[in-house]
C-alpha cells in the first residue's frame, strides 16, 4: 500500500475510523458473552417452601389452614410467607391451633398489604408490608410509601419502617420521615444505614424517637427536596 493511498484519506478520518473499529472489536465479544450469562436470581438458594399439611395432626387446625391457603391463592396473595409461617410454628413446636390462627392472621395482613401496595406482586414486598402492619404501621402509611415510590420495590423501606417503630419511634413520625426520604430519592442502603444508626443509639440507651430525629435530619440534609416543595420548582433560566 502506497503512502499516497493512505494520505489521500485524511488522517483525521483514518484515526476516527480506527478507534471506532477497535472499540467495536473490543466490545462485541464481551457483550455477546454477557448476553449468554444466565439472569441472576434474587436469591441464589431457592427454598422449597411447600409444607405437607398432613403433618398437622389437629383436623380442625388443618382445615383452617387449608381454607386459608385456598383463599389466599384465589385472591392472588403470595402463599410463600404463609408456608413459612407454618414451618416456623412447627419448628418452634407450637400447638396446631396456634399455628392456624397465626397463619390466618398473616393471610389477612398479606391481603391488606397487597391492596395497599398495588400493583406490587412481589412476595418479598408484600410480606414486608404485612410485617409493618404487624408492628402497628397503618395501611395508609403503606399507601403513602407506594405513592412516594411507585415503580420501585418497597421491601427495604418497609423493613426499615418496621424496625424504627419497634425501636420506639412514634409510628406517625417514622412514617412521615421515611416517606419523605423515599420521595427525595434515598437509596435502600441509606435507609438501612438510618435504621442501623438508630438501633445502635437505642442499644446505647438513647430514646428511639430522639435518636431517630437526629439521624433522619442528617439523612434528609443529604437529599434534594421533592419537586413540589423544593426550590427547583421554578427551573433556572439562562440570562438571555
Amino acid at each position, binding site marked *: *500500500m502506497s503512502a499516497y493511498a493512505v494520505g489521500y484519506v485524511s488522517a483525521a478520518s483514518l484515526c476516527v475510523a480506527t478507534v471506532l473499529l477497535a472499540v467495536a472489536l473490543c466490545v462485541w465479544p464481551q457483550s455477546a458473552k454477557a448476553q449468554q450469562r444466565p439472569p441472576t436470581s434474587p436469591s*441464589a438458594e431457592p427454598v422449597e417452601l411447600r409444607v405437607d399439611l398432613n403433618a398437622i395432626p389437629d383436623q380442625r387446625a388443618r382445615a383452617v389452614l387449608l381454607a386459608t391457603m385456598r383463599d389466599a391463592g384465589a385472591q392472588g396473595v403470595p402463599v410463600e410467607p404463609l408456608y413459612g409461617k407454618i414451618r416456623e410454628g412447627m419448628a418452634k413446636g407450637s400447638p396446631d391451633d396456634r399455628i392456624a390462627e397465626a397463619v390466618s392472621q398473616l393471610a389477612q395482613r398479606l391481603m391488606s398489604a397487597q391492596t395497599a401496595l398495588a400493583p406490587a406482586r412481589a412476595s418479598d414486598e408484600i410480606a414486608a408490608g404485612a410485617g409493618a402492619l404487624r*408492628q402497628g404501621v397503618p395501611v395508609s402509611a403503606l399507601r403513602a410509601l407506594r405513592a412516594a415510590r411507585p415503580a420501585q420495590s418497597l421491601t427495604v423501606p*418497609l423493613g426499615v419502617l418496621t424496625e424504627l417503630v419497634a425501636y420506639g419511634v412514634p409510628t406517625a413520625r417514622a412514617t412521615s420521615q421515611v416517606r419523605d426520604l423515599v420521595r427525595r430519592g434515598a437509596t435502600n442502603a441509606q435507609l438501612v444505614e438510618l435504621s442501623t444508626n438508630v438501633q445502635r443509639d437505642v442499644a446505647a440507651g438513647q430514646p428511639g424517637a430522639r435518636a431517630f430525629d437526629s439521624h433522619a435530619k442528617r439523612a434528609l440534609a443529604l437529599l434534594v427536596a421533592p419537586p413540589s416543595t423544593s*426550590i427547583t420548582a421554578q427551573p433556572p433560566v439562562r440570562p438571555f
Partner: protein
Amino acid sequence: MRSDEELMNESMDEHDDVLQRARAALAPLPPANPAAVARILAAVRSDAGADVQPLRLHRETNRESHRESHRETRGEPRRSNRSPQRRWFAGAAILAAAAVVAVVLRGTDSTAPNGTDSLAVTARGDAPTVVAVDTNLSATGDETPYPAVLVPATEDASMEAVPVFFGFVGSARTVALVGDFNGWDADSMPLTRVDGTDRWVTSARIVPGRHVYAFVVDGARWVRDPSAPQAPDDDFGKPGSVLMVTPQ
C-alpha cells in the same frame, strides 16, 4: 434546656441543608434556548458579511479543501472522484490498524486463561470470605451465636441477594440456621463445625431488607442471636433476631 452548642449545631445543620439544596438545584442547568442561539448566530453573520463561509461539517477536511482551492487557483480541474482501488487500500489500512489496536486493548484477556474474566469471577464468587469472622470470641462452651456479618459483594443492583456470614459458638451435635429467608426450614442451612473447635459457621445469600432468624441447636433448642435486635413480631413465643441486610 438545650445548650448553646446544641443550638449552634442545629443552626449549622440547617445551613448545610439549605446549601445542599441550592447546590443540587443549580447544578443541572437547562439546555440552551434555541431561539437565543439562532439570534446570536444571525447577529454574527450579519456583522461578518457575505464573506463568511459556513463551517464544513461534512467529510471533506480543511486540508483537502485547501488543496482543492489551490488547484482551482492554478486552473486545474477539481478532483471529485477518488480511485476505487485507492479507497479499498485505505479501507484495508483502517481495518488492519483497528485489528492491531483491538489486540493491544484486549491484551491478556483473550489469550491468558487467568485473565480479567477469571479474576472478576473470583471477586464476585458465591463463597463469602471468612476473614469476616470475629475471632475474638472464645470457645467457652456457652452457646454464643456471633453476629451475622455482611460480606461485601460486587453485585450493584440494590435488591440482589447479598452473601451473609453466620457463626455460632457452643457445644452441640448439630446447629442449623432458620429464618424467613429459608422458610424456617431447619434442614436447608446447617452450620458446619470448624475442626477442633466449638465454632459453627455457614453463609447464605439473602435479599436486602428486614429478616428474622434464629439457630436451632440439636434439632430442638431455639437460640436467638443476642447480639442482634430481638424480633418483636413473634407469634409462637420463641423470639428470633432481626437482620437488616444492606444492599450492596
